[in-house]
């Protein structure tokens, strides 16, 4: 178990910057998810922690010890590959024993620890089997067991569920979380699937274009996105974003959306942010934070109704202000073309600067 500290970490491939200026501390025993779209630098980060890549700038410390130049075999890092990289020409037993044998562990102890790990992962009946014909969930457990048996300080998992179908993924998410509780290791989990990150991680690090955008607990990142990318990336559908003008409305301040109505605000930070870009500001709200009401503050024409079973997504607005809201199935659904009036749940309004996309006003607990 180890605390990992990344300082100003960066990686360039020729002229392409895969990662820049990453600062993050992963606590001992923490389950940290690196979340972001393809090419955001999450795998690069992980490969540098494992020692497969050398950083261009910055440093990686395990428990305060800089690991630059330490070869990957000596970092004490367990790595679960996207396709598990199981040695399919060997038996399950040989796969589990591989790391111990490589370390020259006495034969009796190898046997004892293989038995121990196998029974923990319910692999005991399969020990004599060749690893080539096993099902995906067994391969996953085997991959984790093979890394765990040498008691690595850190566990890195590179999109381990991306080859699995959706139904199975739910089962494996639960299984993985339980395995982490059993091994109590520091885990870093790379994924582009927000559901995996939200359900399993203690904290999520959202990345895009080689930059770390926000780190926080799943709920914090979801509720208080620090910029418009995080706001739109998390949630399904993501946060609604629309531009409005800040204007004085007598004694109070309002954000005006023209034909779509206006909302009153009380945070002076919003005015300050709007002053930077001709009085404009971005307003955001979650699809589930809006509800149709008789005389809501905002009005949009209904474009399209999308039924997805447990709930219904109503698409509203025009191309400039495409809004989605989620309503329960029992609700009486509006008709297409009808103008719907919406109430936004108090306290769930979020504001962002136009230029930088940074959040305004209410802030989460900060990046680090």
């Amino acid at each position, binding site marked *: 178990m180890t605390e990992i500290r990344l300082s100003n970490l960066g990686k360039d491939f020729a002229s392409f910057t895969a990662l820049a200026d990453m600062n993050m501390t992963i606590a001992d025993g923490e389950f940290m998810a690196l979340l972001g779209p393809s090419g955001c630098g999450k795998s690069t980060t992980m490969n540098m922690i494992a020692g497969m890549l050398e950083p261009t700038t910055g440093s990686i410390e395990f428990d305060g010890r800089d690991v630059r130049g330490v070869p990957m075999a000596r970092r004490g890092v367990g790595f679960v590959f996207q396709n598990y*990289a199981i040695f399919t020409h060997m038996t399950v037993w040989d796969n589990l024993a591989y*790391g111990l044998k490589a370390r020259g562990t006495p034969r009796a102890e190898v046997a004892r620890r293989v038995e121990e790990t196998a029974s923990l992962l319910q692999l005991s009946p399969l020990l004599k089997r060749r690893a*080539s014909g096993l099902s995906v969930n067994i391969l996953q457990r085997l991959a984790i067991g093979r890394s765990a048996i040498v008691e690595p300080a850190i566990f890195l998992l590179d999109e381990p569920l991306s080859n699995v179908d959706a139904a199975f993924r739910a089962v494996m998410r639960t299984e993985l979380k339980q395995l982490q509780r059993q091994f109590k290791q520091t885990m870093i989990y790379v994924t582009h699937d927000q559901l995996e990150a939200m359900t399993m991680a203690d904290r999520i690090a959202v990345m895009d274009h080689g930059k770390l955008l926000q780190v926080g607990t799943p709920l914090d990142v979801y509720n208080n996105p620090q910029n418009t990318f995080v706001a739109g990336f998390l949630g399904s559908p993501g946060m609604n974003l629309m531009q409005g003008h800040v204007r004085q409305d007598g004694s109070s301040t309002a954000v005006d959306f023209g034909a779509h109505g206006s909302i009153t605000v009380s945070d002076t930070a919003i005015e300050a942010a709007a002053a930077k870009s001709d009085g404009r500001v971005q307003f955001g709200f979650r699809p589930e934070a809006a509800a149709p009401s008789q005389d809501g503050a905002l009005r949009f024409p209904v474009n399209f109704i999308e039924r997805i079973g447990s709930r219904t997504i109503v698409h509203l607005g025009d191309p400039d202000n495409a809004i989605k809201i989620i309503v329960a199935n029992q609700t009486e659904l509006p008709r297409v073309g009808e103008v719907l009036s919406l109430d936004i749940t108090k306290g769930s309004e979020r504001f962002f600067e136009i230029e930088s996309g940074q959040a305004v006003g209410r802030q989460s607990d900060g990046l680090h």
Partner: protein
Amino acid sequence: MNTIADITDTVQKTPADRPNDEGHLGLWLSLPAQLLVLFIAVFPILMQIYISLTDWSPLDGIGWWRAWELWNSFANYTDLAQDNRFWSALLRTLLVMVVCVPVEFLLGLGLAVLFVDEFPGRRFLYSVLLIPMMVVPAVAGYMFFMLFQSGGPINDILAFFVGQPVKIAWLSDPDLALIAVMVADIWQWTPLMFLILLAGLVGVPEDQQRAATLLGASWWRRFITIVLPRMKTIMIIALAIRVIENFKIFDTLFIMTGGGPGVATETISVYIYKVTQQELIWGYVAAIALAILITLSIVSAYAIRHVSSPEADT
């Protein structure tokens, strides 16, 4: 005249109307090719079996189809079993194989390991390494014939190291001639091993090797436990190709020594050549050739069975 629509109509209707015709049609269409294969492969073998059971020779003045007039049952085969020259040629062929193939394999594997990773000049050296393979074997034979002359460059190089003139008569010394022949074979065919094994080496999954490294395995352990087992199929193919090819060794050797001095480098192919061209006893040659064909088929069958078995998983 049929329009295209008519033709497509017919094509679409036929299987539905006469479903059994499809199979017959396929048979008819492939029949010429099948007959050709039959003619090329099966006919010569049947002819060979037939002649191997007779005393026929072109000098007899009768066509080969009348060879039955000289029927001698299995006399050729019983003769073969007692033919010392045949058995020593066979042993010599096996000796060449047992030395050359492993040396080519190990050299090829070693080179392949060096060439897996990028290094400056890799592409250039790669092309250079493949040159011997592209040299016509007869030309390679001539090259080594020159190199191994007693006044040739190889002796000169040895002289440089020894510090005094070296006059080894490589090709006319019965003990050394076979070594010279082996050197030529190794020079020419190590590149093929290298090429095949490099392809196999590149195909070993990168992440499995990384996984092994992350588990603390040394390079050597990784090579023995991951790389080699994963290359098993390709190694068997490479070895099978070279075993079969090496068994047939002829052109390089024939130009270098002509099988001599005496019979010192006479391999099976050289022996067959001499019996065919100089002694003209074709019935006997057919028997020898057939015996070798059967031997090689067993080797190939063994290799194919290993390669296609589910055990050989990659």
